[in-house]
């Protein structure tokens, strides 16, 4: 069996033919993948937790510097946490946030109900990639029966980031969101995936 190669091509046939074929293969057009692939993949994964071996390896490889001042700052942080918890407990009803998907409105969109339990707020707005982070476009209404600020939006399938804007200044993320993403300005955006499958609560 002949298998001699020159420049990656077999020697026993006209090299010109094979070069042409290889050139044609190289320039074959590719199809663009559907835009929702990233969203669906990201909806199917969870952040990884470092295994014990990896944690041990990091501890062994990352140098630890003993600094008494660092201990002082840790102690101060712990005290602050206790203070915050105490204030939080005395604040009254616990703040909670929920986001739920409801029945499909039509073939392409689904209704997403955003709900934030924050009775002390005087105005809550929903800002996100679906309204270009524009305050005022999606003002939430207080629902006395739910004891929460509520807003329904019809959204097509896709991946969205959002947050709540409380009293026009405080940005609050959804603690029940599938994932949180650092927005680069010190806040966490919540991630919402609206899937193509019609169904119950899948997708968030």
């Amino acid at each position, binding site marked *: 069996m002949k298998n001699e190669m020159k420049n990656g091509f077999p020697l026993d046939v006209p090299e010109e*033919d094979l070069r042409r074929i*290889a050139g044609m293969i*190289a320039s074959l057009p590719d199809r663009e993948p559907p835009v929702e692939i990233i969203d669906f993949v990201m909806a199917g994964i969870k952040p990884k937790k470092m295994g014990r071996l990896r944690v041990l390896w990091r501890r062994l490889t990352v140098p630890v510097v003993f600094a008494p001042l660092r201990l002082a700052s840790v102690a101060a942080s712990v005290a602050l946490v206790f203070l915050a918890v105490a204030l939080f407990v005395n604040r009254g009803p616990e703040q909670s946030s929920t986001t739920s998907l409801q029945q499909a409105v039509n073939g392409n969109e689904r209704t997403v109900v955003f709900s934030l339990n924050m009775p002390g707020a005087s105005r809550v707005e929903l800002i996100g990639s679906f309204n270009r982070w524009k305050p005022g476009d999606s003002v939430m209404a207080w629902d006395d029966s739910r004891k929460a600020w509520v807003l329904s939006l019809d959204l097509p399938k896709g991946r969205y980031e959002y947050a709540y804007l409380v009293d026009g200044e405080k940005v609050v993320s959804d603690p029940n969101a599938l994932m949180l993403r650092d927005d680069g300005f010190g806040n966490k955006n919540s991630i919402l995936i609206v899937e193509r499958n019609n169904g119950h609560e899948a997708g968030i």
Partner: protein
Amino acid sequence: MSSTDSTLVHEILAGDAEAYAILVKRYQKPIFNLMLRMTSCDEDAMDLTQETFVRAYEKLEQFKPCSPFFPWLYTIGMNLARDFQRKVRASRTAMESLSRDMDPLSDSAESLSGRLDADQVSQMLRKLPPDYRESLMLRFHEGLSVNELASALDISVSGAKMRIHRGLLKLRELLGEKNHEE
């Protein structure tokens, strides 16, 4: 400057799942096109593309950061596509009968005559057995080295050279037949 694949893998393993979106964006096109070639169906190609990336994420601890990411990902995709094809027995049978009918070294030294266009090449590539087709696509379309190709297809370097050799001959033969018919 964009992050390298190995930097991103490091960040993902440290708990930053969002970094994986960059890898998906970077490689979804070749994986989706691989699946289109393997299934000839948009819906199946999309499902298999997603599955490839999710499976790769689950196995990410097994990835060796010193080696290139794409061939490793491609291996996972190929294995999933093969599993899929095993389930679709009709297409597999067709491929095997085509493979049996063709003598890989029965080429003549005559030059290819007639025109050769992208549609013809694409059409004839689909008729090649998947191993040969993907060897040619990885080598000439994706620009992988023979070593990377061997790694992606989980074969030896000499085996990879053999696949390129035979793949080119088979494709040339198919294109010659096509031109002869016309």
